[in-house]
């Protein structure tokens, strides 16, 4: 069996000053080129799981593997190649882009930090990445406040893709967007994933979005994965009461045609 692109094994995380664990023996496997959804409500631990995968939070126990190689729990102890290979896009692009930087500089920050390209080449690289995001070169010198929410999120995506990751973690990437803009971003994600053969972890409270993108889904509640399976199983034949309640509530809020 080939190693998973990303594997989290038996992660336990309790935040300082808390007694209740945020993650309580959570495991998640993401195959190469696979899109895995992590769904759950606020406080279920889905964003904590992303933080542990990225090394932004250090779990008390459990391991993170990238293509079978164990990663340091601390982001600062990971190698540049490991950092490049695993990237994240957050919900709020306004908070994750430096407000004083032009778009081209944000997009190529990772490349510049790792000395991967000469300064003169950075603008051209940024322009090519923006083109992949269906944005013209006219945006290169804009600041984040001059962009719409959807444009900012596409810039955040271009920045994550600049370092050619294998695995992309998306933490509620479209939750703050209008539906028509969300549709553009979801289309882009599908195009990029297929073109680059990316593995995706899609974290969302929006079951429709997760079902649209993902073939496998893990349902989280109170720091545990209560159920995991194929998207079809989770939606049409949920085994756990909580999954049934969640899927049922989401179905009532979702459009019926």
């Amino acid at each position, binding site marked *: 069996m080939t190693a998973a692109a990303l594997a989290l094994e038996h992660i336990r995380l309790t935040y300082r000053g808390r007694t209740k664990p945020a993650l309580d023996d959570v495991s998640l496997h993401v195959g190469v080129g696979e899109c895995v959804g992590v769904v759950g409500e606020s406080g279920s631990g889905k964003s904590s799981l992303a933080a542990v995968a990225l090394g932004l939070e250090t779990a008390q126990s459990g391991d993170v593997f990238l293509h079978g190689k164990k990663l340091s729990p601390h982001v600062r102890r990971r190698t540049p190649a490991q950092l490049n290979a695993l990237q994240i896009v957050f919900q709020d692009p306004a908070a994750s882009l430096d407000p004083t930087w032009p778009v081209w500089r944000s997009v190529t920050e990772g490349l510049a930090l790792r000395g991967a390209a000469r300064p003169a080449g950075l603008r051209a690289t940024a322009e090519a990445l923006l083109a992949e995001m269906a944005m013209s070169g006219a945006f290169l010198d804009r600041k984040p406040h001059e962009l719409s929410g959807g444009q900012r999120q596409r810039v955040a995506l271009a920045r994550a893709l600049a370092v050619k990751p294998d695995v992309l973690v998306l933490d509620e990437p479209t939750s703050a967007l209008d*539906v028509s803009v*969300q549709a553009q971003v979801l289309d882009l994600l599908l195009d990029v994933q297929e073109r680059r053969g990316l593995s995706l972890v899609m974290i969302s409270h929006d079951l*429709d979005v997760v*079902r*649209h993108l993902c073939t496998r889904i893990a349902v989280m509640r109170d720091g545990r994965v209560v159920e995991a399976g194929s998207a079809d199983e989770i939606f049409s034949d949920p085994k756990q009461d909580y999954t049934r309640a969640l899927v049922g509530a989401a179905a009532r809020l979702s459009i019926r*045609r």
Partner: protein
Amino acid sequence: MSAPLLQVADLRVAFRSGQSWSHAVDGVSFDIARGEILGCVGESGSGKSATATALLGLLPPRAARVSADALVFDGRDMTRLSEKEWLSLRGREVAFAPQDPMSALNPIMRIGRHMRLIQPRIAPREAHAAAASALQRMGFADPETILRAYPFQLSGGQRQRALLAMALLAKPKLLIADEPTTALDVTVQAQILDLIESTARADGLSVLFITHNLGVAQRLCDRLIVMRTGTIVESGATSEILSAPQHAYTRALLAALPGAAPPRTRLTQRAAP
């Protein structure tokens, strides 16, 4: 047939931007019947929140200009109300449920005191009982605990339900709800929509429900108006609009919903239904 509770004809709202005025709402007309739930669907910049704010008389007079051929609530011309008359209308006959309950609550005031302030002319004991029963109707099994709580001690869903209890305390005729469930988890959203719907059906409450979520609108609303850049592009019975949308924008909105499309299809290229 009785006259509609709210009649809006050619409503315009303009905001000052430098020397000129820009129209956020540009000639909007609709009615809301008694006991009817009208959905106002649109994306950012459609003018849906500016419409709501105008109907609540909450736009700052120097920065915003409101005009309408008719703005009639329960037989009264809203364009001619004094601030004093607005005060007797707003929060009593026309109630408001905002998207973010935290910013609508005073962070250093207990829920009970918020609810006390809404009923100034009622004896404390009666006011307390009314507040407790309003909370109970919003699904709180132990209203006394909620009355003693500060806003930060409640979850997002509890805050929104407490705010709805406050909004409905004075038995308003019209509830204007501006994306009241957007920030909440799906199970809590479903619960709050049920509460709004059951109150509307039981008490004959009219609701203007503003949302960007067509699924929520389908679930709750009798009729819809679809707004874009300050105008209504389409209006009609919810089932008709959603099964046979006439306007290209409505079709595009429906096509953009991932829940209605086969997995992994490109949503922006979907043939309009």
